[in-house]
């Protein structure tokens, strides 16, 4: 087992981080948030030109090559910078098209200007139904749906769920803009016999869901790491009645726990990224990682905000964006408790998958 980053991986992280950081200044993010659509189109174009948006897509199809592990390293940087770009949904939607063999669509969306949205939800918030190749119904909270090119969506067909590619710009699709707690754009979609391309069945949907989860764990790992960095700097300088706050044991012990949480999350997140780079299915560890990502995001950001005092809620100071990003990621695709229930079901049905 090798736990270090290779030279090329480190260079990729540096490149992605510097681009994302340059654009994601608090002033610029505030402007985008006030514009009503928190998407940085200039940054998106720059990332496309640098090949960052097509990591995980083979070069023969017009992608950058590399694999899912590298894609997740880039997502960590997106978390560290709370960047306003749909890297997760777009990247994993493209990978799903490649996986499904929808190569014509894949090539088209690689060169298209915009981005792809994707949802894997099959709970009561998704009422989509397929009938004679067309989709009807409503689905809520689809990340980055507003102004996207197309959506990857599950819909009920017969007794089970299939996964479809649905072009956004068609008369039978209505998008109502929704706002995520992290201010990212989401959409409530109402489809009335919308044209759709079937990409696969429940197997492919599971494939997509596992990758969306692993990607959100990578983002969470970056969010948590950066929040701790900000907080460490703050409590090392800030004084209460002439004493540095970071010297209080109640504060430093809490931050030490945050460090351990962050260490554990980075390990689990990179572990599942490397598993999914090598194999189709890693459901047990993906669920375990998501449990941790939710718990760690919740605990660490509560600690970071707490030891900042009022400043942790000040919109002129960067920390609050990390707090809402952590909550968004905690609940993205599935929550810690739901992931635990899913892992428990695996333990009951396939104990061989959870040997230690």
């Amino acid at each position, binding site marked *: *087992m*090798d*736990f*270090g980053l290779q030279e090329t991986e480190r260079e990729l992280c540096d490149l992605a981080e510097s681009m994302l950081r340059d654009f994601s200044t608090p002033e610029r993010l505030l402007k985008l948030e006030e514009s009503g659509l928190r998407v940085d189109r200039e940054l998106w174009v720059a990332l496309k030109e640098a090949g960052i948006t097509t990591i995980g897509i083979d070069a023969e199809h017009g992608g950058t090559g590399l694999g899912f592990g590298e894609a997740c390293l880039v997502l960590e940087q997106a978390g560290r910078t709370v960047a306003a770009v749909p890297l997760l949904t777009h990247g994993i939607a493209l990978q799903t098209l490649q996986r499904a063999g929808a190569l014509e669509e894949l090539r088209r969306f690689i060169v298209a200007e915009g981005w792809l949205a994707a949802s894997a939800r099959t709970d009561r918030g998704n009422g989509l139904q397929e009938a004679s190749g067309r989709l009807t119904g409503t689905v809520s909270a689809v990340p980055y749906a507003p102004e996207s090119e197309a959506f990857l969506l599950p819909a009920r067909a017969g007794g089970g769920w299939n996964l479809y590619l649905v072009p956004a710009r068609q008369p039978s699709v209505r998008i109502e803009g929704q706002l995520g707690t992290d201010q990212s754009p989401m959409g409530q979609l109402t489809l009335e016999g919308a044209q759709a391309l079937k990409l696969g069945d429940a197997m492919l949907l599971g494939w997509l869901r596992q990758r969306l989860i692993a990607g959100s764990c990578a983002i969470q790992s970056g969010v948590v790491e950066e929040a*701790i960095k900000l907080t*460490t700097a703050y*409590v*090392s300088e800030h004084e209460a009645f002439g004493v*540095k706050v*970071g*010297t209080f*044991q109640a504060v*430093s*012990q809490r*931050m*030490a*726990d945050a*460090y*351990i949480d962050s*260490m*554990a999350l980075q*390990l*689990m997140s990179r*572990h599942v990224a490397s598993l999914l780079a090598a194999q189709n299915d890693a459901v*047990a*560890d993906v*669920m*375990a990682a998501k*449990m*941790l990502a939710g718990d760690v995001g919740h605990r660490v950001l509560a600690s970071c905000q707490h030891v900042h005092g009022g400043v942790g809620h000040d919109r002129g100071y960067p920390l609050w964006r990390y707090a809402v990003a952590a909550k968004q990621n905690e609940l993205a695709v599935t929550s810690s408790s739901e992931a*635990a*229930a899913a*892992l*428990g*079901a695996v*333990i*009951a049905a396939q*104990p061989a998958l*959870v*040997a*230690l």
Partner: protein
Amino acid sequence: MPARNLIGLENGGWAVITSQLNRERLALMNPGIANLVYSKVLEHVHETRDGARLVDQPWVQMNMARIYAALKTLNLACRRQAWGIAQGTLTAAEASAIKILGYETFLSVFRQMLEVLGPDATLRRGSPGVPLEGMLDVLYRTVPVYGFAGGTNEVMRDMVAQMGLGLPRVKRA
């Protein structure tokens, strides 16, 4: 002894003892025994008795899921540190971190395993009908020692805060 009770340098003994302590902290948190008990509990919950399996109860599934997730994380963290030792890069902050992670993990997973075993769980070794030969009863009683033995966890957290995060150093009385 005196020479003002030298600690750093001269022949470098201090660095030897502190790096030994780092390794000791990892060794203390070796998850091997917890993995073994976990595998036995996993078998236990899959056994059918009177037509039913424990693992078919939702709360048992939740406990088992939390146990697996926590132990998987600890296993990875320990391997990561063993790798760090092999590379010569293991830091005192990491070694302190593993001691806290290991202690907290053992404390919670052994409790959740005891819950799964039910009222028989508290039977002492040697009692008729004791599950898993009484292993868990011995283990859960041992874990609290590791909160302080090998360096108390408050001191471990101080080391993580100061050496891992770079928080200001404080002299504790």
